[in-house]
């Protein structure tokens, strides 16, 4: 269909709504289901006319109908349609009771939709409406606790930082464990795509308000059709479509505030000087105080709260306008969004402008088509390094650490108001000891490090139904993501010292996907229903990056890449390509809607593998039995209580290619320079035998409904065996290899149980409470690594606290055991590899600091020898408890989420107990001071970076991570239909909400829901100098016109 035709159509419809004749009457009401729950998005149409509307989130509707209207036709997805005569009534309470609700409900599956009743796969659907108004840039950050089997860990309070997203556990060691995200049929880019200090989650291009539903595909029956990309699970995002009826305009907006919570309690200037000078006095040759007060401009001793120079209360707001509607032939959904979200870190923010345009059109009985298009511009801004993104834990500028460890007795400003700097460090003021940290204030004031994304996602499709049972469909989509990274670093202090530095680079990611399917559905002899799908898909992804890195400012005036600089270098050079070709099919069969069988097959060819090894086959089988349909069951005593019961099982294989280098099977020599001349050197050892990492997934489960679905539930057992696990087989460094080549060698499994229980305990005319609880238990275990590779360690920047080894879960915490503080000496007790207790005295001369408890000299603790695997870092169980209450026009949502059975390495605690010039937490005030003191804080000794775990990770800093969090509380009020009408609007809802309002945990850091290493597989459970999560509050408004 041409663009012009589409526009004409839309314009025509707008005209229609605008030129309504005077012969009208106002009609309003509410549509609910059998349990009295509101049905949003139900279509309410005047029979025989094009006039009508859809219901809002509370199931309410109101519109102006022609006076001649005789009857209303009400329908909704998953419910039967019903007809109600109008007569003289103007207010309607409509209940959609569908005896075969299950049969009608449709689930989005790979490459199509399927009646929920015939689905034999494990799929969880989350409605877009529950995430639409959450104050987060992307939907995934709000998914936590909403679905069994889905673990979401929001790593920290950096705006737009992608969450750790796992479906049924961590399923890879060296490849990605992030699920495949498919938006309207097009697999999209995921992860942090920023090359700057700001995080940029690629999924933030999708305005959460545009999402109709998220279908989370978990078992092989659901994911095997995605073949080599299905191993980590698949999330199908369906964006909103228009519905037949009068065009409906909605506005959603909110404004909110965000700030840090549960910050560490740090020492003030006086305490700082006391403790640090005590450390000096505790030296072998006691030293005089070097930490001395400095009077500020007001004459008072300087006592700086460095949090004031790192954090803020950020203000955010968001606005979405959507118009949707349609005629018999054409439906459309058209939306525009704007949001600006300030983070709790100074100058860290996210800004998005997006436009979406979805149209579907029936050309004739045989042919239909449509298109979806989304353009999004996102600006992710930062000034200082947050120190909280992967690889930044020990960054010199890491703001999280600076805000903790900078001495409170120095000020960011000299008394004359200028920046307090001394060379590339903060000025020490009256202290007589150098403070070698940076002053963050000039950095925050002058630096910027931004990533601006231009993201176009769209697809067009054409569908042909030559005969009733056959559907042919071809769908072509593009996903173009350009990321423009810009950074400027001031010459005053920091990364740009002393001459300034800047870079800019453009990273272009382009993908096209062409999918063609043919589907045949037919029921033979009334009871044999058959559905066959065959299809092909090609996915081509290319990326290119280039840019400029400049240093040595020619004048401090310049603050951008284009200004005056002396030195030029390259930045962000990249060139890549890959191609995936696939053929796939699915066969569904059911007998009498009782017995279900399904099989899928997919053959994938991927360009990263060597010639001859590119192809892989993936398949699944599944079956289901709808027990409740059996007469013997329905008529039994149990059948009267259990109104539905379906058993289900599946087995199949999927693969993982996410994270394989484009040329991983090739060996290369690459160019470099030596004294400005061309060099060539071995740069990549490829593995020509490289092939797919495959998962064998088993899923057994059942769903049930009790008391006419007053209580429903789903219980599933799963096991995911990953073998041929692709490992970057570690090479002994003496081999001098440039890389650890990928090899199909390891094995790992995840197995677990998922439980979802939903109920409506109270449902009266005015008051209703519906609740849903989910619980997932996941057991991860690595079974084999490569021969000669006893274990693999994963670093957190400069520190290694995680180990992956056979017979342990991945990412085990790997620390030196400690055994408290010796009350006799005040020294930290370590336990060495031999199991001997060794104490450490930093005041002794180097070489004689480690002694046994009897005082005899002991060998030094060496992390390489004495670190041992001690604690599990992957949550063993997690879930959510969601409650919705409504009383008349008020609604209340309370969502609790929880994770448990894991430990977190609180490396930040090592930083804030370090006895160099770094400030310490108030806990250090309970330090050991005299013989007999029983405490967990050793005697303070100037310069001691060993006793508290700065130099080497120690078990003292590992803490239980289990938590329950008050994730979301939202209180809403919907204007009564009559009031709305008076205001000339269809509906209006106001709400206040809060996120992350409270937490119950024994963890001592700001938040046990943390990841210093982002989505890393082998280095989870680490909190090293990372900012905590923010607490937010919003007020919002939704208006329908």
């Amino acid at each position, binding site marked *: 269909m041409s663009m012009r035709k589409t526009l004409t159509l839309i314009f025509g419809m707008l005209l229609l709504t605008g030129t309504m004749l005077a012969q009208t009457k106002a009609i309003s009401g509410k549509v609910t289901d059998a349990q009295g729950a509101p049905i949003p998005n139900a279509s309410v149409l005047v029979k025989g006319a094009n006039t009508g509307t859809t219901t809002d989130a509370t199931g309410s509707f109101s519109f102006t109908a022609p006076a001649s209207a005789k009857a209303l036709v009400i329908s909704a997805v998953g419910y039967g349609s019903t007809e109600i005569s109008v007569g003289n009534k103007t207010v309607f309470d409509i209940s959609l009771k569908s005896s075969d609700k299950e049969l009608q409900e449709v689930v989005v599956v790979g490459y199509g939709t399927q009646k929920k009743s015939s689905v034999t796969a494990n799929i969880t659907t989350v409605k877009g409406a529950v995430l639409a108004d959450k104050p987060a840039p992307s939907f995934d950050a709000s998914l936590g606790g909403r679905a069994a089997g889905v673990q979401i860990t929001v790593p920290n309070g950096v705006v737009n930082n992608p969450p750790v997203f796992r479906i049924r556990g961590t399923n890879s060691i060296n490849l990605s464990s992030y699920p495949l995200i498919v938006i309207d049929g097009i697999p999209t880019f995921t992860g942090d795509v920023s090359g700057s200090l700001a995080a940029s989650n690629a999924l933030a291009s999708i305005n959460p308000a545009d999402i109709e539903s998220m279908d989370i595909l978990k078992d092989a029956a659901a994911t095997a059709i995605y073949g080599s990309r299905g191993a980590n699970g698949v999330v199908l995002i369906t964006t909103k479509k228009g519905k037949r009826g009068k065009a409906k305009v909605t506005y959603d907006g909110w404004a909110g505030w965000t700030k840090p919570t549960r910050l560490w309690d740090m020492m003030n200037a006086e305490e700082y000087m006391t403790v640090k000078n005590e450390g000096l006095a505790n030296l072998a040759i006691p030293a005089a105080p070097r930490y001395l007060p400095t009077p500020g401009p007001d004459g008072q001793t300087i006592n700086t709260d460095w949090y004031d120079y790192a954090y803020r209360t950020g203000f955010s707001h968001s606005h979405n306008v959507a118009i949707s509607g349609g005629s018999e032939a054409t439906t459309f959904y058209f939306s525009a969004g704007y949001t600006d979200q300030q983070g709790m870190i100074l100058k860290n923010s996210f800004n998005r402008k997006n436009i979406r345009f979805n149209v579907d059109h029936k050309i004739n009985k045989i042919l239909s088509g449509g298109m979806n298009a989304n353009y999004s511009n996102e600006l992710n801004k930062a000034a200082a390094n947050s120190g909280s993104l992967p690889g930044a834990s020990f960054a010199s500028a890491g703001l999280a650490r600076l805000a903790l460890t900078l001495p409170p007795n120095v000020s960011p400003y000299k008394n004359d108001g200028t920046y307090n700097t001394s060379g590339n460090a903060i000025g020490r003021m009256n202290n007589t000891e150098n403070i070698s940290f940076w002053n963050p204030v000039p950095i925050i004031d002058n630096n910027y490090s931004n990533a601006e994304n231009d993201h176009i996602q769209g697809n067009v499709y054409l569908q042909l139904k030559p005969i009733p049972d056959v559907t042919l469909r071809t769908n072509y989509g593009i996903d173009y993501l350009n990321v423009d990274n810009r950074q400027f670093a001031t010459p005053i202090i920091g990364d740009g010292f002393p001459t300034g530095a800047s870079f800019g680079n453009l990273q272009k990611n382009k993908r096209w996907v062409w999918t063609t399917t043919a589907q045949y559905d037919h029921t033979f002899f009334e009871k044999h229903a058959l559905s066959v799908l065959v299809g092909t898909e090609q996915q081509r992804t290319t990326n290119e990056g280039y840019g400029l890195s400049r240093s040595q400012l020619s004048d401090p005036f310049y603050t951008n890449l284009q200004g005056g600089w002396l030195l030029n270098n390259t930045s962000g050079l990249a060139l890549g390509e890959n191609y995936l070709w696939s053929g796939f099919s699915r066969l569904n069969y059911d007998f009498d809607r009782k017995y279900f069988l399904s099989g899928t097959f997919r053959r994938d060819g991927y360009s990263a593998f060597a010639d001859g090894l590119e192809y892989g086959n993936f398949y699944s089988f599944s079956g289901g039995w709808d027990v409740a349909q059996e007469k013997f069951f329905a008529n039994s005593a149990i059948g009267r209580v259990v109104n539905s019961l379906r058993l289900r099982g599946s087995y199949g294989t999927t693969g993982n290619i996410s994270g394989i280098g484009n040329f991983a099977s090739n060996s290369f020599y690459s160019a470099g320079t030596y004294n400005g001349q061309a060099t060539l050197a071995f740069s990549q050892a490829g593995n020509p035998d490289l092939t797919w990492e495959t998962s064998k997934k088993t899923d057994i489960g059942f769903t049930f409904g009790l008391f006419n679905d007053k209580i429903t539930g789903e219980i599933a057992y799963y096991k995911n065996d990953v073998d041929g696990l692709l490992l970057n087989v570690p090479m002994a460094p003496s081999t001098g290899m440039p890389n650890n080549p990928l090899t199909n060698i390891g094995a790992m499994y995840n197995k677990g149980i998922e439980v979802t229980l939903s109920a409506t305990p109270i449902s009266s005319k005015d008051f209703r409470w519906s609740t849903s609880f989910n619980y997932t238990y996941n057991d991860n275990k690595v079974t084999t690594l490569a021969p000669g590779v006893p274990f693999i360690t994963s670093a957190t920047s400069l520190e290694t606290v995680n180990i992956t080894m056979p017979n342990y879960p991945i990412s085990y915490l790997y620390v030196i055991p400690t055994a408290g503080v010796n009350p006799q000496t005040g020294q930290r007790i370590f336990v060495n590899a031999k199991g001997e207790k060794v104490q450490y005295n930093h005041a002794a001369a180097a070489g004689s600091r480690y002694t046994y408890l009897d005082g005899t000299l002991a060998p030094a603790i060496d992390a390489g020898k004495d670190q041992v695997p001690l604690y599990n870092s992957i949550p063993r169980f997690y879930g959510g408890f969601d409650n919705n209450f409504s009383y008349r026009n008020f609604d209340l949502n309370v969502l609790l989420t929880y994770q448990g059975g894991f430990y977190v390495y609180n490396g930040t605690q090592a930083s804030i107990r370090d006895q160099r010039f770094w400030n310490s937490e108030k806990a250090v005030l309970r330090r050991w001071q005299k013989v007999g003191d029983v405490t967990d804080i050793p005697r303070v000794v100037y310069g001691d970076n060993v006793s508290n775990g700065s*130099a080497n990770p120690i078990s003292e800093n590992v803490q239980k991570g289990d938590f329950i969090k008050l994730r979301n509380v939202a209180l809403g009020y919907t204007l009564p239909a009559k009031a709305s009408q008076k205001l000339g609007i269809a509906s209006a809802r106001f709400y206040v909400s809060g996120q992350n309002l409270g937490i119950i945990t024994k963890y001592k850091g700001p938040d046990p829901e943390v990841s210093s290493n982002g989505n890393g597989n082998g280095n989870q459970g680490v909190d090293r100098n990372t900012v905590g999560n923010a607490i937010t509050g919003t007020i919002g408004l939704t208006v329908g016109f």
Partner: protein
Amino acid sequence: MKKYMLKLALLSGVTMVLFSCQKSTLNPTSTTALDDKTAFATLDRIDGQVKGIYAAIKSGQVLGGRYFLYNDARAENLVSEDPNRVTVRAPWEFSVGSSDDEPRNLWSNAYSTINRANLFLDGMEAGGNAVAGAKATEFQGEARFLRGLSYYILVTTFARPYWDGNGSKRGLPLRLKGIKGPGFNELAPVTVAEVYTQILQDLDFAETNLAATVADATARTTRAHKNTAIALKTRVYLSMRDYPKVITEANKIVSTTAPFKAPSGVANALAANITNLFTGTSTDLENIFSMPFTVNDAPGTQNQLGHYYRPSSAGGQGIFSLNANGVIGDTKWTKADDRRKLIDTASSKSYLKKFNSGSPWLDFAPVIRYSEVMLNLAEALARGNAGVDARAVELLNAVRNRSDKTTTYTTASFANQAELLVAILQERNIEFLGEGIRSLDIWRLGLDFPTKSSGGFIVTAIPSTSPAYIFPISSDETRLNPLISN
């Protein structure tokens, strides 16, 4: 029936068109890196590979900066002003653990140089020689020079000195074949003596095959020639305490009488003024071998010598000041000595000024200077002569007198052999301050690393029996290659 035909036709049509995949797209070739099979296809690529081996050893983790820093940090002349463990604090205070970055990165980068050399030598044998023609042996000479130098760096850092058990102690895994894939992790170490044998074989081969003369001043300073290999051999033999061999080798490039210069090959000689050597990128003939840097190929963050040695007032980080109780406290090192001009003060602390070009710190990192060969020879001569060796004194005097016109040594200046040896050792300490020589001297002579302190923080003397006397082997190696341990 017609319907079914239509169905079939449509289905098969769609299938035919869409199942065809783009075969060439499924097997792409890289346009940004060379297929390994083509790396020896042209003379330029072979030449590029030789430079690639230099580029590897020039890594900031090795000769680009840190190898020198570790050696100087361990000795007594520096005071660590920064407790940050990232900036060479642990070597300074002798608390290096096997999983610390210092041993891990030095070990892996030196071996990465070795593997590049091995892959190159293998490839030359497998066909590269034919392409390189007349230049083939010279290229191989460079590769073997760099391999020998890498093993020397490793054996002087991670193994016991040669004198301890006469080379019988645990040495290094000796890798002599290029490795391009998995399966080679396990290799037992050979003895220290066997490592030295290999180093000398490589350097002998290099001496035979390297170019005798190099016209271009930069090339003769930044790539090896015959005299470079000989110069390095004098250091290697000195480390083995094989003084006669030091004399044999040194005599090849040190004339019998002053003015001392190389009689053959590149005319290496003492520069007129030492300060001329530290102006950034000196290609003076004294500078036998240096690591060069360019704007686009800088030493890298926290590897640059100037970043460590220059105070913040001079754009550095002032991580190491000069210890007042170290060599700068030597009263016989006169104020008139030009080498004192390579020291300045800031906030009442002394700082080394040899590397002073400012960010991005492109000063050459000197590896071997002619004055070292002279003092190597002087020491070997002195040790071989129970009296006061005249030529040794002459060589010592040439180095001292070049910088300090007020001091002239004669044989009368020394009562005996021991006094002369002390003077030569002290001369080395003065001459090569900040050039990574001092702790090599301590180590090869079995001396204690002297005590030192920083702000009340005391590092006691480390005797040669201490485990901290050498670096522990990288924990990555001991984990993946169980045949070697600390």
